[in-house]
């Protein structure tokens, strides 16, 4: 992830914009910010215009328009910002590596959604069991598949990469 940069000397505003972006939650996870999910790629500020470059978790995600309008509303509320332009970037491609540790924790603890380990293995977020079995490649959203933990007998959802 390239470091967000600013071409003019308004570090205060860029920090404020970044903080505003951190307050925008993913519409399908009401307590997970788009920054923690790793959607923010670029941020510049010039002449009153904040330009935000985001990358979608999945093409065809139905939340993109909603995220875009939430971002615009949050950023344009920052003092000194006249306008916010949001661009959906085609590269780099989003992977679960972009998610912060906080996002992973929230997903596992609050939503019973986990990421595959480096060896492809799954650990149950409910009981810690390591015999989680894949059940369906398609889950309720584009970004998740369905698995089952035979140890505690709970469905587990898995973020797809």
């Amino acid at each position, binding site marked *: 992830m390239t470091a967000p940069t600013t071409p003019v000397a308004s570090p205060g505003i860029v920090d404020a914009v970044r903080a505003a972006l951190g307050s925008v939650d993913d519409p*399908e996870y009401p307590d997970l910010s788009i920054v923690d999910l790793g959607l923010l790629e670029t941020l510049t500020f010039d002449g009153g215009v904040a330009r935000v470059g985001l990358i979608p978790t999945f093409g065809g995600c139905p939340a993109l328009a909603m995220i875009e309008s939430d971002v615009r509303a949050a950023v344009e509320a920052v003092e000194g910002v006249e306008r916010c332009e949001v661009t959906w970037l085609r590269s780099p491609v989003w992977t679960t590596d972009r998610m912060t540790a906080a996002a992973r924790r929230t997903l596992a603890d609050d939503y019973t959604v986990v990421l595959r380990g480096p060896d492809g293995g799954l650990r149950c977020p409910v009981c810690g069991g390591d015999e989680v079995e894949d059940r*369906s490649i398609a889950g*309720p*959203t584009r970004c998740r598949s*369905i698995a*089952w933990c035979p140890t505690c007998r709970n469905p587990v959802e898995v973020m797809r990469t």
Partner: protein
Amino acid sequence: MRRTWSDAADFQAFIDEGGMVEPEDDMPAAYRDEVFRFIEFHANSELMGGLTERDWIPHSPGLRLKQIFLAKTQDEIGHAHLLYMVAADMGVKSRQEMLDDLFAGRSRFHNVFHYQAVTWADQIAIAYLVDAAAFASQRAVFAECSYGPYKRILKRIVAEEGFHMRHGEEMLLRMAEGTEVQHTMFQEALDRWWWPAVQLFGPDSDPADPLLAWKIKSQRNEVLRDAYIQKYVPLLQGYGFRIPDDGLRQDADGRWVTSPIDWEPLKATMRQGGPDSRRRIENAARNWADTAWVRDALDRSAAAAA
């Protein structure tokens, strides 16, 4: 870790203290049966709702709305899948038995999926009014929910239904601010969907309903229904729409009071005797048969990989 309770009072005390029942626990048979039936009803409703939305994907105006209806369909079918997993695990019926019962018209699902969506505006009425009613009732189950695996699924379902509601509001706004034709179209849809949406909450709760005592339901039906009416009557009127209830009035405290509700239409849907019940059930059964090759291909590919 398997917990046991000496008797019904002992179990009730556990629930009253906020205890969460897990699959391995030796839960009372009556609890297992009632909770199973409740989850089966929810699973059936998600499946029937998802299939309704699927029918409208080709008819949605514009690529963005097609994308939204595709995603909503995937959401509902995914929810059904998760719920059937948890229900089947309770050992009362297998998933196949639940589906067989559904397709044979032997089991129940939400009243709102027994009606026909006539125009695109009906689909918006469903997204705005019906999804909101379903959301309110699911959120009330999530609020307590003593069965662990169900509560964990509900967390995600409630988050996703909240997202659907925003789509519904967006679509409604477009109709409300649109042309006279659009306004009339939505009014006609509202005339068809207002009462089914209000009836989704069901008649007043029986005070002896064990699901209340066992904290599956956190609120009585009439409380949820009233909160819904207080919220949606002014919203719809504010958009310039008319509630199809000539007896609607405000009491001395300004609270909205509807005409007495005729529960016959709701009861008819519970006997699969709603206006569109037969076609919907046949459609679901045909869909299941038509997609057998997909399940077969997945099974073969999994077997080959193993």
